[in-house]
């Protein structure tokens, strides 16, 4: 056995911003190298925009705004955030948990909160790229007008993203495997999407279902973005629906989320 000197006392140390930035960079690379996870949530909503914008762009429905601005673009933007928040992010977290990546990180000074923050930030960056892409195409190709109130619109986007990621955290908390996370996320996405008017608008649904869908995160997101964009008051039902989703998501994930 080798001779060693008296060891120095251990002082507390937590990784700082440099470490968080490195971790975010790694998470971004993981997203970029996951081709399906990158392309589908950005490409599918864009495809819906491209195929619907022609007819919807010429149809004025309210406040001088077209159906493209009032119905299609809010739906497309809500889809981008919902697909990434409810399907992609939970499946990444479930994979990390299942494969032991979170367990491996748990024996380093990186805190679970830091790992989660990096994952969410990388995911939000992907959503922002999707929003910028869809909005850019709508502006440049189809001549969509700017939001009536940019401040309110940005505020609504923050609330929508918080609600979708909170819903995603519920999926991450209850899904035991990556496959089940994708399955639960897809079912949840299509359920709230269908009730929120993703397939033909809320008017095509029976009234009770349309009412329920309007409170759920997808329907509330579409209605809130639409109102903010066209300059009408954002409904209290939508704000309550999105806010409740955030609170419930945080509580459920806080109680049920497991790191291994």
């Amino acid at each position, binding site marked *: *056995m*080798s*001779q*060693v*000197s*008296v*060891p120095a*006392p*251990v*002082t*507390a*140390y*937590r*990784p700082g911003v*440099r*470490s968080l930035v*490195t*971790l975010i960079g*790694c998470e971004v*690379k*993981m997203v970029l*190298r*996951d081709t399906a996870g990158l392309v589908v949530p950005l490409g599918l909503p864009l495809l819906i925009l491209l195929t619907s914008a022609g007819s919807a762009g010429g149809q004025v429905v309210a406040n001088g705004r077209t159906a493209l601005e009032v119905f299609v673009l809010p739906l497309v933007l809500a889809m981008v955030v919902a697909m990434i928040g409810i399907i992609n992010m939970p499946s990444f977290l479930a994979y990390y948990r299942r*494969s*032991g*990546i979170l*367990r*491996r990180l*748990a*024996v*380093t*000074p*990186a805190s679970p909160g830091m790992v989660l923050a990096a994952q969410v930030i990388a995911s939000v960056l992907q959503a922002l790229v999707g929003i910028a892409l869809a909005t850019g195409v709508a502006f440049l190709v189809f001549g969509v007008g700017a939001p009536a109130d940019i401040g309110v619109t940005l505020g609504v986007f923050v609330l929508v993203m918080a609600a979708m990621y909170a819903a995603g955290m519920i999926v991450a908390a209850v899904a035991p495997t990556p496959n089940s996370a994708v399955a639960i996320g897809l079912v949840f996405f299509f359920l709230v999407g269908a009730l929120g008017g993703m397939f033909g608008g809320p008017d095509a649904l029976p009234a009770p279902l349309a009412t329920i869908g309007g409170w759920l995160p997808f329907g509330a997101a579409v209605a809130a973005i639409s109102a903010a964009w066209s300059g009408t008051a954002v409904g209290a039902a939508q704000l309550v629906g999105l806010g409740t989703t955030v609170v419930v998501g945080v509580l459920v994930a806080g109680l049920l989320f497991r790191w291994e």
Partner: protein
Amino acid sequence: MSDTEPAILAEHLAKRYRAVRAVVDVSLRVDVGETVGVLGTNGAGKTTTVEMIAGLRVPDEGRVRVLGLDPRTDRARLRQVLGVQLQHAHLHHALRVSELVDLYRSFYPDPRSAAELLDLVDLAGQRRTVFDKLSGGQQQRLSIALALAGRPRVAILDELTTGLDPKARRRMWSTVEQLRAEGVTVLLVSHAMEEVERLCDRVVVLDGGRVLALDTPAGLVARSGTATLDDAFVALTGKDLEETR
């Protein structure tokens, strides 16, 4: 901690998984700078014991201290002086070797350089290779490098060389010998008698979640009246380590 305080102190550890008593009563003291091997058949409680010492599992009973720190309450301080290579843990599968090394280095205040880490495990030539494209042995070597990124004062290495080819195994043995020379305390879980005899100052033999013996390799052989450590293990446990791998 004082200069007489052990690097690792485990007292009467017990852990149960539902009906299974994985660890019944394990006590262990490892002095600073010592390399101690943990031997046992599958299900002997080796991994559960080291995971309780690493703070990954909470003991049902007993007490753990690493460099005087409680793994449950002193997590932040412990994590910067403890390096752990887990038996079953993957890394971000789509990241390159160099990216993973940079990531794990970023967690520590004074990490080893990336070049030193890659040289240590002979992976300099794979620095641009994605983790998923590495062979099993290369993945294991990278995992060991990452465990050493923060210049740990205590290293827990679970199945250090399982699955490695003879050349890589000898390379890992040299790495452990280098750690010893640097004064690092090493707890080494192993199935390989040759490895334990070569690297370890003392060996703890576990069976059925209890400590059967804790002695030097030569002491274990002498007390069992056998000729080799392999035979000493069989005499102690009634089981052949090779058959349980």
